[in-house]
């Protein structure tokens, strides 16, 4: 119980460190946010007034204390470009990214583990080698390039070459522009729009996982209990699902936590290419507009996700792995 508390506190400490670090990074960078906010014709007096308004004329320590106090109260400031609270922007964008990233993370894990296990079962054969080449090549491909390729084939190509309707897939946004209002589109519409972006994220992610799942499985298949189960007459499918998978799960869970940053990075590109209004796109727009509060806000959320995933993996492991139970 005490170690659990210590881990959770440690995670919060780490998150705080990340926050302070990002704050410093943004404040110490060259460039004056006030200059970006004002029109080019603004006078020096107007600039000074705006700086006072934003608190930028205060010493760094005072700025930090103010900002930290606001963050503790859940206030991430106001977007410089959109004049709306950063939390409101995040609340709109986060579900989109969570849907995109979450569904591809699940698919990534299932597909990647399955491919890795098939490879391990067929170790050294043609199928294993072919899958190794395929996964390594996919792993080496930039997601934005794959995305462009899929758009070329399934959006433009599909129309030119007369693909069946099911294979003609939309490339932009998460809804049909003609569909009725509401924050979220109807489910079939959403799913159709999600096929291409989720495919890109899953292909890149699963190929990375498969490489590790293969070796994690091979570590287990050499064990005595696998030979014993096989000798007892357990079929191959049952052997892998019931005996090998639970024992290979530990490194895979760690891997899932470790692969979260990759999914986040991928979603920045995928959201950019497919024009999904998620956090990645919010971040990119904010960067192009030098919208510092939004940049800080998105970074905080991403860091919290990564730290949370690592903490969850840490806490889950003893429950899943009897050898680590105490």
């Amino acid at each position, binding site marked *: 119980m005490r170690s659990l508390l210590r881990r959770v506190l440690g995670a919060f400490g780490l998150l705080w460190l990340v926050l302070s670090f990002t704050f410093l990074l943004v404040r110490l960078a060259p460039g004056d946010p006030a200059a970006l906010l004002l029109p080019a014709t603004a006078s020096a007096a107007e600039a000074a007034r705006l700086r006072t308004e934003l608190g930028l004329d205060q010493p760094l320590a005072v700025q930090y204390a103010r900002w930290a106090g606001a963050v503790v109260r859940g206030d991430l400031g106001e977007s410089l470009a959109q004049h709306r609270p950063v939390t409101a922007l995040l609340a709109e964008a986060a579900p989109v990214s969570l849907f995109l990233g979450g569904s591809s993370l699940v698919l990534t894990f299932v597909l990647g583990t399955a491919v890795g296990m098939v490879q391990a079962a067929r170790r050294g054969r043609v199928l294993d080698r072919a899958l190794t080449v395929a996964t390594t090549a996919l792993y080496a491909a930039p997601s934005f390039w794959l995305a462009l390729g899929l758009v070329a084939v399934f959006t433009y190509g599909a129309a030119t070459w007369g693909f069946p309707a099911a294979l003609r897939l939309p490339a932009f946004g998460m809804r049909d522009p003609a569909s009725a209002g509401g924050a979220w589109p109807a489910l079939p519409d959403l799913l159709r729009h999600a096929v291409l972006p989720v495919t890109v994220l899953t292909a890149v992610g699963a190929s990375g996982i498969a490489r590790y799942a293969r070796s994690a499985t091979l570590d287990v298949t050499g064990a005595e209990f696998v030979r014993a189960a096989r000798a007892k007459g357990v079929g191959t499918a049952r052997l892998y699902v019931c005996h090998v998978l639970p024992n290979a799960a530990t490194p895979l869970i760690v891997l899932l936590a470790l692969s979260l940053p990759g999914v*986040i990075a991928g979603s920045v*590109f995928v959201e950019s290419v497919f024009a999904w209004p998620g956090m990645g796109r919010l971040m990119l727009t904010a960067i192009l507009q030098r919208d510092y509060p939004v940049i800080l806000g998105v970074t905080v959320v991403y860091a919290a996700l990564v730290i949370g995933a690592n903490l969850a993996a840490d806490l889950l492991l003893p429950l899943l792995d009897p050898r680590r139970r105490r």
Partner: protein
Amino acid sequence: MNGLARTTGARVALAALLLLALGAALVPALAPADPLAVSDVLAQRLLPPLSRDAAGHLHLLGTDRFGRDLFTRMMLAGRISLAIGIVGSLLAAAMGTVIGAVAAWRGGVLDAAVMAVADALLAIPRLVLLLVCAALWSPGISTVVAILVATGWMGVARLVRGEVLGVRERQYVDAARALGTGPRRLLWRHVLPNALGPAIVATTLGVGSAILLESGLSFLGLGVQPPVPSWGNMIAGGRDLIVTAPWVAIAPGLALVVTVLAATVIGDTLRDELAGEVRVGPGDRA
């Protein structure tokens, strides 16, 4: 190197990388036209691969929207992308090695502080950190390298720190100390060389991801700036031509895949040869 050339995959990968590096070094130097200059746009633009222009010059991979030869540009971009990826990861590895070794050797507050900073930086996805830095400083080649170093040292630092902590308990270190070796010499001559295996593997695998990250930044317009070509900004340049002139985006993408694939295969082989039990996470990719 002996072990590295043993598997077919690694041999092919090494050959591919050498060929690319050679092409990157020679092709722009030998090219008939300046890869950055724009000539007769209307006559030259978007020629398909293997076609000849009005002057009779063969364009192996065709031309882009400004009529520039894609093969020459791709090889020039290869110079830049390869150099950024390799220099960026080597500098990051050097920084990580020094920081990790010193932290482990000194221990105490310094160690705790350094590892806290490393953990904090590792908690931010590397791409996000790259984007934040790229947004704050003006984009360009040196910025990209600086950012790759600033965001890439933590993994190696952790690996080296762990190895140094293990190696310094070995008997040969005790023996060297008993013979009167000073602490500095002990660290650099006896401990560190034996603690580098995992760091070398991580660095080799890191080259691929550095190249991908650079291409990603350049694709988004935050890395290498046109007209200087990089594989990433060349793909960005072909983005809206993906239907009418797909070769513009396909060629640099393939170059990226081949390069990163080769770096990964070499890294994997090194891992199998050098250090069986190293586990390096999948990490950030573009």
